[in-house]
């Protein structure tokens, strides 16, 4: 606040701030930056929780049925801290739920979307600030519901994050998670409502509130990623919400959308029938496949910005990048069936979905080639955000290519529901999105808090994370090739998989190392809040609009009216005096004209 020094707008704010209470300023704030930070802190905490859940899973896989360190005793006092199979199903269900719905989706759209969209397009706030505030506070019911679901006695939701019926609908099928499953579904519904509010806001803001001269094709790719994501959410989410409600009704009212006739589960016969379990899978994946892109597109955008900035060179093929984002989004709606190749869906459909799925690799390939094109011929600065972004590219290559195996239907017969797919989506989501998010945090941290994070610690954090990440996830491909199935509490009683235990131990220790490494990050993050080097507006020498605002920006963001003269990637421009050429800097020959693109 005190850093806002110029402009009558800011002065107005200051006078009002003295009257505004702490609650309206920092808790129920309608300022997109506060909301963004609220999202950021909430999701980072959940990220930690999700990581610990993952360690629980890994412990069981490395040392099945042995006493679990630290938390074992309080969970299973009578059993000597031995993990129980129900708890294992709860663990992986909750790990996926937390990571997907509380970390990846809200940290991209909620945290960075909120923080960056108005700043990068030159607006003073979102189009609907109150809606924006609500989108954050609707996450809290979800936090509590999922938390309650986890702590529901005796065991939390155990239907997997995909919540396939009848397992998730018939109480007797997963009896430990009877009411927990309902809580889980309601929690997911709240996440959906929150995302929906956000997506409406982002779309409107990006379309309506761009600064003068900020044409659609001068938007940074981050904004394009967020924009397309918002559209995806707006179209796909209602399906999940509806399907979720159908499942809640199946559970509570016995409607039987997803239950066929004649089940006998745990010696009881469900009252309803006449439904079809595959219906849920269709509805679920109709949302959740686009959701996969919701989880990666904004990260791709942010990575593009960071790479271009630190290669000191324009992004290679800006428009193809935009088209490929749109292409991924469009194709994303017609490929959901590739999750269901062996589900019992008509196999003829498998052929159609195989072709469309193969096609989605194409825009992804275009993006990778463009990132390579961007660093080609640049002057690369190996800063921490750059390293994380480069690792995004490197890991995304692996994650993208392993996707082709799954897309090929006959190969998918073998590797479906094995660790091959676990490797694939962890490469995309952890190696990809999470690494991009780390990069983005290091990159925008000075803007958010006015201080730099420690570069040395950042590089150590990157190095260890990168090593442990590959140690944990690359080996999963090999396990997948043996057919090692997911979600098994004890795979080693199968002769086929018995010899895989040493490999799993290696992975577990890598995973423990990976989580431990994040302590460095947490330390860096918190200590930099207090002792970080204070910085000015543009510490990295970047072009896009947010770097023209104060660090941290005050209420209303800009202390001047930004006017945009060019695209965001004009690094190393021959006309420019510096090696970057900010979007707000007028061209030397005609400083007043706002050029049309």
């Amino acid at each position, binding site marked *: 606040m005190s850093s806002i020094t110029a402009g009558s707008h800011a002065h107005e704010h200051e006078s009002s701030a003295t009257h505004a209470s702490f609650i309206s300023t920092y808790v129920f704030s309608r300022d997109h930056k506060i909301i963004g930070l609220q999202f950021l802190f909430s999701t980072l905490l959940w990220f930690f929780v999700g990581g610990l859940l993952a360690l629980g899973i890994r412990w069981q896989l490395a040392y099945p049925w042995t006493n679990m360190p630290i938390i074992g005793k309080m969970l299973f006092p009578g059993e000597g801290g031995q993990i129980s199979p*129900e708890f*294992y199903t709860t663990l992986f269900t909750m790990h996926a739920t937390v990571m997907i719905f509380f970390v990846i989706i809200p940290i991209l759209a909620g945290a960075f979307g909120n923080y960056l969209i108005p700043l990068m397009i030159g607006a003073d706030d979102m189009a609907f600030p109150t809606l924006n505030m609500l989108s954050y506070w609707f996450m809290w019911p979800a936090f509590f519901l999922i938390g309650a679901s986890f702590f529901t006695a005796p*065991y939390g939701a155990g239907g997997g994050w995909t919540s*396939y019926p*009848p*397992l998730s609908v*018939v109480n007797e*099928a*997963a009896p*430990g998670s009877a009411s927990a499953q309902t809580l889980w579904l309601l929690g997911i519904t709240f996440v959906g409502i929150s995302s929906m509010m956000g997506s409406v806001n982002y779309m409107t803001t990006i379309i309506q509130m761009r600064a003068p001269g900020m044409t659609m094709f001068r938007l940074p790719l981050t904004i394009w990623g967020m924009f397309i994501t918002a559209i995806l959410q707006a179209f796909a989410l209602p399906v999940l919400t509806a399907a979720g409600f159908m499942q809640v009704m199946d559970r509570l009212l016995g409607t039987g959308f997803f239950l*066929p*006739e004649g*089940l*006998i*589960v745990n010696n009881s016969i469900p009252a309803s029938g006449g439904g079809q*379990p*595959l219906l849920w899978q269709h509805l679920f994946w109709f949302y959740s496949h686009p959701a996969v892109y919701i989880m990666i597109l904004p990260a791709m955008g942010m990575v593009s910005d960071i790479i271009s900035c630190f*290669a*000191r060179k*324009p*992004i*290679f093929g*800006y428009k193809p990048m935009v088209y490929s984002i749109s292409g991924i989004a469009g194709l994303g709606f017609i490929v959901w069936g590739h999750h269901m190749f*062996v589900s*019992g869906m008509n*196999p003829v459909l*498998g*052929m159609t979905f195989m*072709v469309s799925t193969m096609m989605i690799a*194409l825009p992804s*390939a*275009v993006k990778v080639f463009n990132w*390579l*094109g961007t*660093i*080609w011929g*640049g002057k*690369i*600065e*190996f800063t921490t955000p750059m390293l994380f972004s480069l690792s995004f590219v*490197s890991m995304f*290559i*692996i994650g993208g290519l392993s996707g*082709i*195996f799954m897309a*090929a239907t*006959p*190969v998918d*017969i*073998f590797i*479906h*529901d094995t660790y091959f797919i676990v490797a694939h989506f962890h490469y995309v989501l952890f190696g990809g999105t999470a690494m991009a998010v780390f990069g983005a945090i290091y990159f925008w941290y000075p803007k958010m808090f006015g201080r730099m994070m420690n570069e040395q610690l950042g590089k150590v954090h990157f190095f260890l994370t990168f090593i442990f990440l590959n140690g944990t996830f690359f080996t999963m491909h090999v396990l997948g*090739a043996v*057919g090692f*199935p997911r979600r*098994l509490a004890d795979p080693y009683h199968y002769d086929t998989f018995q*010899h895989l235990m*040493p*490999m799993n131990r290696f992975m577990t220790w890598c995973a423990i190392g990976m989580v431990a490494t994040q302590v460095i990050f947490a330390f860096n993050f918190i200590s930099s809040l207090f002792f970080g080097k204070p910085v000015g507006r543009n510490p990295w020498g970047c072009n896009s609009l947010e770097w023209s605002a104060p660090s941290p920006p005050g209420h209303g963001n800009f202390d001047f009216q930004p006017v945009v003269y060019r695209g965001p990637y004009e690094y190393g421009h*021959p006309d420019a005096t510096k090696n970057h050429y900010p979007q707000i800097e007028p061209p030397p020959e005609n400083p007043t004209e706002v050029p049309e693109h």
Partner: protein
Amino acid sequence: MGRFWSLLFLAVPVLGVGVFAAAMMTDSWPLHNHWLPRDVSEKGYVIDNLFNTILYLTGVIFVGTSLALFWFLWKYDGEKNLGPVRFLHGSHTLEVVWSIIPAATLLFIAIYQMNAWADAKIDRPGTRLAGADGRMNTEDDLVEFQLPIAQVTGRQFEWRIRYAGRDGVVGTSDDVHTVNDLHLPVDEEVVLQIKSDDVLHSFFLPNCRLKQDVVPGMKQMVWFKPKEVGSFDIVCAELCGWGHYKMKGRMTIQSRKDFDQWLTDQERIQQESSFALSEEE
């Protein structure tokens, strides 16, 4: 430091290829047998070949792009590259080239797979009979499908197997029942009917490259032709509740003679009606 980081990124393709290569040489330490399990189905090689084809294709792309990434990082390190950057916004030609080449490759992969998929999931074994017009090999040929040798029912948490018995039809009183113990004759096309009593399961035979989710309310057929004698795992590959991990079955492939003998033995055991013999297998 730029050099160091470039080498770190070089390590990705080097170690990646290394791990896969070590895994593919199935008897190398420490990745002993960390590769596709022994294939005992006649058509299993098709899936293995496709897997390998895609592996080589993607491997080339992986190594290519990763090396390019390394090389660009090495060469254009800001500390070493003192010249001006190449100020360019892209190349239309390049974009077209690297769109069309992957597109063609991917389409090729997709179409190349169709037959394998159809063999595995669509064309159920059977005999073709003359059609309505009385002629063979026409569009309207009738197919008399091969009857299943056994019915495999998934339930929480076991595989209940029911052999057709003497009359060749599953569901009659002469059926032979076993739990988690599937015996099959070698070198014969085997059709199994799979169904579920309660929730979703997945009938997974890693050694036969066969997997099919078992959906309650549906009876599905799976088929394959075992080509080797031995004993192999039946795995459940779809989350079916807390006991998912323990749905272990055993598939024993044996010669027709042994199989018939086994089935007769099972039938006899199932008819056990005196105490003296109760300690039998």
